[in-house]
């Protein structure tokens, strides 16, 4: 039984116009193991799994399930072979309950008078039992549109289990989760393995592989590079296998050389669009050449601080000073002109106009000024030259250069475009909110280097991140926010990671994590 593979994908090749997404890839997965597929965005992990799940047909190669050669032409055929998949973007019916979502397509039936009817009572009961069996607590009667992302993910997992899937594929399952939610998901994945399920985990995060996987296949540019046992794998080596060159995981960070105070936030109180006070009496200063990071669990008011400084949210009380001058009453454009660059959290809705091309997006900060506009007419050649310059300087990759529609670009390159546009203004203050969310290790490093570079040239940097590692690595000063208030501000080297974590949870457990969670969901 030990050498029995439950799933084999042999010599799989898949070509798309202009690109070989999978090039002679072979993976063999044992029953009851957690098998990680590690690689950067675009390495071919998702394509390989889409082939397994019946969404693409391979050009070459064969798939064996339990030793039998199979053709998988559709997701329902994959389900018939007891293969299930949790996609990165969930496919849930938002106005259905959790139970209705899970049983959809396989509903238990009862009689309504003499007519057949869906038996929701039985469905609720079945889901309750199933969720207890695997330790995935959910309320079957809760409406999916009203529950959080991590619970929605549990619903997706339960959907697979309800269909009695044995091989479970997770596509980048931690991309949208907070650190606590990631912990609990990884536990769930471990439990599933221990109850006999086979798990394939698609990810670009090394530490997740290290924490849960038994074996790990590294993909790069469509090719299988290596398969390793996680227990005896060296993180640094795997990272370089993944990226394709020797990379240093440590950043070359020079000591801070601070100048005058650039940003001075005094007793800032901000309410969100629903009128709830998210930021309460927050004060901090950032000097030139300093990175101040605000650490905290998602939803504690950090985004609202950034939005208030950039002018996206009105200030309820308090004052914001830039270079000693109050900007509290200024419009967004006036603030930008005074010297604020902003890399927002939501790059799709706030950072970019997805259906515009790259050159228009890169010109968004300048389009109304000369030489971009002359006598009220946009100067296309100026846009093009400027875009080409930035594309070259910041290594923004896309299919057709300045004319690429931004929606079609990868997340990493979209973010590079925003960073390029904002940094190029040469402003004294840059705000980065979640700058590396969803990016792979290579793109992440480039962004980190840009942040340090800006700080070294004498810019004040406000960094807001949910990734504690990122905060610890980059910050000169850390301010920890909890429930809209900054609990502690101190030089980064006086904190340990554990201490920051404790402040993030509200210091010494005045309120436990669950209480916080509940509060956030309300």
């Amino acid at each position: 039984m030990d050498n029995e593979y439950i799933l084999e994908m042999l010599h799989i090749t898949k070509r798309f116009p202009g690109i070989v997404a999978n090039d002679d890839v072979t993976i063999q997965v044992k029953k009851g193991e957690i098998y990680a597929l590690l690689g950067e965005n675009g390495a071919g992990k998702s394509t390989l799994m889409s082939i397994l799940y019946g969404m693409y047909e391979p050009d070459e190669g064969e798939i064996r399930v339990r030793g039998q050669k199979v053709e998988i032409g559709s997701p329902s055929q994959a389900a018939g072979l007891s293969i299930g998949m949790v996609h990165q973007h969930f496919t849930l019916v938002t106005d259905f309950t959790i139970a209705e979502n899970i049983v959809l397509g396989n509903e238990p039936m009862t009689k309504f008078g003499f007519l057949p009817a869906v038996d929701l009572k039985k469905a609720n009961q079945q889901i309750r039992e199933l969720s207890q069996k695997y330790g995935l607590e959910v309320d079957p009667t809760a409406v999916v549109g009203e529950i959080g992302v991590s619970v929605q993910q549990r619903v997706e997992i339960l959907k697979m289990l309800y269909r009695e899937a044995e091989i479970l594929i997770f596509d980048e399952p931690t991309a949208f989760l907070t650190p606590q939610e990631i912990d609990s998901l990884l536990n769930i994945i471990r439990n599933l393995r221990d109850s006999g399920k086979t798990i394939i985990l698609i990810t670009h995060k090394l530490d997740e592989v290290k924490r849960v996987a038994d074996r790990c296949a590294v993909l790069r540019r469509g090719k299988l590079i290596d398969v390793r046992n996680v227990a005896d794998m060296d993180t640094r080596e795997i990272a370089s296998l993944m990226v394709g060159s020797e990379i240093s995981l440590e950043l070359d960070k020079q000591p801070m050389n601070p100048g005058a105070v650039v940003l001075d936030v005094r007793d800032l109180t901000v309410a969100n669009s629903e009128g709830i006070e998210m930021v309460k009496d927050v004060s901090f200063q950032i000097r030139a050449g300093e990175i101040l990071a605000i650490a905290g669990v998602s939803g504690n008011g950090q985004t609202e601080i950034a939005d208030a400084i950039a002018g996206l949210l009105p200030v309820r009380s308090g004052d914001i000073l830039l270079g000693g001058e109050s900007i509290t009453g200024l419009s967004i454009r006036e603030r930008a002109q005074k010297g604020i660059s902003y890399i927002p959290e939501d790059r799709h809705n706030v950072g970019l106009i997805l259906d515009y091309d790259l050159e228009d997006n890169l010109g968004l900060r300048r389009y109304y000024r000369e030489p971009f506009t002359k006598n009220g007419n946009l100067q296309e050649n100026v846009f093009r030259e400027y875009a080409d310059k930035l594309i070259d300087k910041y290594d923004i990759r896309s299919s057709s250069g300045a004319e690429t529609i931004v929606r079609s670009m990868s997340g990493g390159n979209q973010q590079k475009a925003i960073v390029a546009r904002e940094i190029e203004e040469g402003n004294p203050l840059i705000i980065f909110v979640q700058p590396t969310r969803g990016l792979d290790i290579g793109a992440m490093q480039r962004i980190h280097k840009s942040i340090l570079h800006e700080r070294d040239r004498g810019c004040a940097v406000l960094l807001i991140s949910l990734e504690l590692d990122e905060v610890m690595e980059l910050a000169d000063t850390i301010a920890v926010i909890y429930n809209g208030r900054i609990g502690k501000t101190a030089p980064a080297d006086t904190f340990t990671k554990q201490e920051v974590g404790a402040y993030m949870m509200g210091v010494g457990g005045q309120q436990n994590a669950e209480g916080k969670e509940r509060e956030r969901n309300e």
Partner: protein
Amino acid sequence: MTLINNTIIDGMAFMLPLLIMAIGGIFSERSGITNLAVEGLSGMGAFTGALAAYIMTTCLGISSGPAYYLSFLFAALGGMLLGLLHAFLCIDGKANQVICGVVINILAQSVTIFLVKTINREIFGKPSDKIDLGVSARYTVPGLSKIPVLGAFFTKIYPFEVMIIILTLIASYVLYKSRFGMHLRACGDNPHAVDAAGLDVAGIRRRAVMISGALSGIGGMAFAYSISAKFSASYFVGYGYLAIAALIFGNWTILPTLRACVIFGFARSAGYQIVQKLGYPSSYQDLIMILPYVLTLVLLIFWSGKNRSPRALGEIYDKAKR
């Protein structure tokens, strides 16, 4: 007393056809297909039903009783066939659903009028732009109709009123209790989830739009009997759009849509009765005819904020796009 009684009698006769058309719209829209074609679908139903009734009574010698009921069957078929065109254009042709609905309305109106004239001239040999229907029988339930006020609900009932009430019950069961209804509602919220569950999104939606066409046709036939006892160009006065307004006010659910239809129906009939009672000239009656539409505008202001349309409504479903 007669004022209230007549308000109820007329109100029911107006409200129920409107309701069944709105329910048809709910089926289509809850499956994710915008259906502005209710007007055209009901008109096509009224035309085919009226034509069938005329042929059955004058040419085939079928007595008016069975012909009456059969005409509704043909009306449902006519509406369903045109609904199938809407479904084909929207689902298979991936057409813009709003434009498609409007085009079907225009098409139904011009085609039915053309056909009425041509058939009258070529087949029946008389120049006429209408199809006459016999006057519908109306029933009064003995005993129950003697109850004060409430008795009006059992007085001078058109047979179609009973038919529509039964259909409403069946439609509620199908939409909320049956497996098909569950799949249909899921399609309107997230077709990808339906697809992932191994179900056929296009097939479910096609059936939903055909049901919509059939119910619209039945509603249209009922209007043809109750309002004018004929089918002609004057049929198209926009009740289909009113049905859409009702289902939007009803938040795409059957019971609140019933409430909206009650308001429309009784406002119209009450206004009509009051004008008659006061003995105003007929121009005032015309004014009353616009009451449901004015009411729609007023209600829009109060009700719009709370309403939430099906999430995938009007979006063209493309399997590959996620």
